[in-house]
């Protein structure tokens, strides 16, 4: 997949989110920065509790009241070149911005649709909130439904519970593209569906992207799905982006120990017998995170420096960033693994 590297659509600068809990401050997301280019698909991968869902809700400012969002800015560039900071929007402006510029596909397909409304009602709702007439909305959505391989006329008149899980997910996909946004955020869109359904959703997504050329932030814990559809991959651990780069580089030339560990723990179908490595321990407490690198307690490469000094996010060639003290050793290890796999 190719995309335009010169045009940045969304630029997230130093974003942090803290939850106020009884026990203290939960640092769910800390100092996250990244750029999303036009037509690019960025996969955020990480385990549950790493902050990826919080990050995506922060981007569209839909976090609950207990969360405090801080940051230098979420800069968005309109098609006409105007640049705005999403964090500075008024509520009204935010409502206009949402969906028409940045739409979302959520994880639970059943729960994402209002059970008492028909699909058509939800389409009209969305359209009228953004000043689009019913006929226009209908015309657009029927076309989109066909593009996502749905029985357009029937689905349009259905209630959510009358559709299967895969159909609902595709309805959401179509609905997210109704206003032709530049950015679509997808939060684990294929997690709750079966393998063959996942396949058809991924295929549809690829087709739509080629045709409509929108940018995608794809959130997933599934490395395989990320490997298939992402242009750029960002690994998140304990609320931070620890590594980011083009998909092949991150997968074949990992520079962060956590990314490498995740890859070594992922079984592959088309490789014969394989030895997988488990990651010891469990993710850290986000209220009192460990000092130094947050991953050091579970890391095979950890040294004394890792236990005390938090590693900075360093830029390497080819748009790569990684926050790891032992990046050279990790890279060496990754290259060896790759060589062994190819042999």
């Amino acid at each position, binding site marked *: 997949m190719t995309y335009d590297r010169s045009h940045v659509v969304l630029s997230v600068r130093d974003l942090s989110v803290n939850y106020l809990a009884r026990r203290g401050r939960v640092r769910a997301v800390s100092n996250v920065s990244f750029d999303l280019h036009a037509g690019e698909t960025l996969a955020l991968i990480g385990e549950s509790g790493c902050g990826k869902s919080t990050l995506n809700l922060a981007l569209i400012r839909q976090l609950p009241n207990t969360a405090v969002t801080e940051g230098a800015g979420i800069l968005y560039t309109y098609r006409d070149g105007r640049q705005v900071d999403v964090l500075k929007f008024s509520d009204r402006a935010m*409502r206009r911005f949402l969906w028409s510029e940045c739409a979302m596909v959520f994880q639970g397909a059943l729960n994402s649709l209002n059970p008492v409304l028909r699909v058509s009602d939800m389409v009209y709702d969305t359209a009228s909130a953004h000043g689009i007439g019913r006929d226009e909305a209908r015309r657009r959505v029927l076309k989109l439904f066909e593009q996502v391989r749905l029985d357009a006329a029937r689905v349009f008149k259905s209630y959510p519970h009358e559709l299967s899980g895969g159909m609902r997910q595709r309805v959401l996909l179509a609905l997210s593209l109704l206003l032709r946004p530049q950015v679509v955020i997808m939060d684990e869109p294929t997690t709750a569906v079966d393998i063959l359904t996942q396949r058809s959703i991924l295929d549809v997504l690829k087709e739509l992207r080629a045709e409509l050329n929108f940018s995608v932030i794809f959130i997933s814990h599934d490395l395989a799905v990320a490997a298939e559809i992402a242009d750029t991959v960002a690994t998140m651990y304990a609320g931070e982006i620890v590594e980011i780069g083009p998909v092949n580089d991150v997968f074949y030339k990992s520079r962060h120990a956590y990314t490498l560990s995740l890859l070594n723990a992922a079984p592959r179908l088309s490789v014969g017998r394989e030895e997988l490595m488990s990651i010891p321990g469990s993710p850290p407490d986000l209220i009192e995170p460990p000092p130094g690198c947050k991953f050091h307690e579970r890391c095979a490469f950890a040294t004394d420096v890792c236990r005390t000094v938090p590693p900075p996010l360093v830029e390497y060639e080819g748009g790569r960033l990684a926050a790891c003290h032992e990046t050279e050793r990790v890279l060496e290890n990754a290259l060896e693994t790759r060589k062994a796999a190819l042999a």
Partner: protein
Amino acid sequence: MSAITTQPAQPQPQVDVQTPNVLDFLRRLWRNYYVKVFIQGLITIWAVTTFTFFMIRQMPGSPVEAKIDELMTRQAMTYEEAYRATATLFNFDPDRPLHLQYFDFLSGLVRGDLGDSITKGGVSVTSIILRYLPWTLFCVGMALVISFSLGIVMGLAMGYWRGSWFDNLITTISSIISGIPDYIMALLIILIFGVQLQWFRIGDVRGGVDPNITPGFTFEYIASVFKYALLPMLIYVLSSIGTWTLSMKSSTISTLGEDYITVAKARGLSQRRILTDYVGRNAMLPLVTRLAISVGFVVGGSVIIEEMFQYPGLGRNLYIAISGRDYTTMQGIFLVITAAVVFSNILADLAIGWLDPRVRLGKQEES
């Protein structure tokens, strides 16, 4: 090549193409959900009525005996004479075997005749019910509508702006008033505002309407009806609104946690639209069932409140009938209340099916 073993496909279940007969028709009728529920309801009403019929006749002290004693002492009749006089007066024969009385009652019931009141000679039970039912319906029904709609709106607002001063204030008040029984509340209001503070005179609003005003569709009459119903209505509202408010609040809060609310917000819908069609409509669903069920209990009114305010409703009449051992009236009022409860349950079912498409589908599949 290995031998291929195959099994014949299992035969398709055959579609019933029998000629329709009565049994078949009944079976299909039974399969219709609403017909089934309706018939079940009728059976329940019959069972409850039978139960109350025999229960009521177990009550010690019959009205006839009381009357016979009175006639014998006052008019110096013999027992025989007094007995016959009472029998004609009461239109009721206490010596008639119980099961025959029961069959009389049932056959009357089938014809829509509930018999005559025992203590009020010549007045039919149906006319008593028709005379007093509207008062109760008006007073309690109005109160129910007010407290439900107010409760829904307030609960929705409280849940949506959770933790605001409005929420905290109303939650506290609701918890307190929902914890106090209705007649205790009535007494408190009468004693504090009526007797101690003298804001109103309780003696002025006893009964259903000012007896000096001629009934009619006049402003004066209607105003009087409202004036007399105001206090009991206020008490009904106060004693039930807390529960509605708190239930709606918790229902709203759990609805707000649903993904589709977040999605609706992410779609940029206006707050009003989200509040009504997304939060409100879904949060209301569990309450609608309870509303429909409460409608059934409207008919009975509250015996104590009506007695306290001498309000001419069914509840007070039931109390009078019980004290006077007026079997037929008691029986009639019980029947009306039971029927109301049964049918409001069916109504609840219908209402939820109407409001919630998921349930609608379930019904169709079942039938």
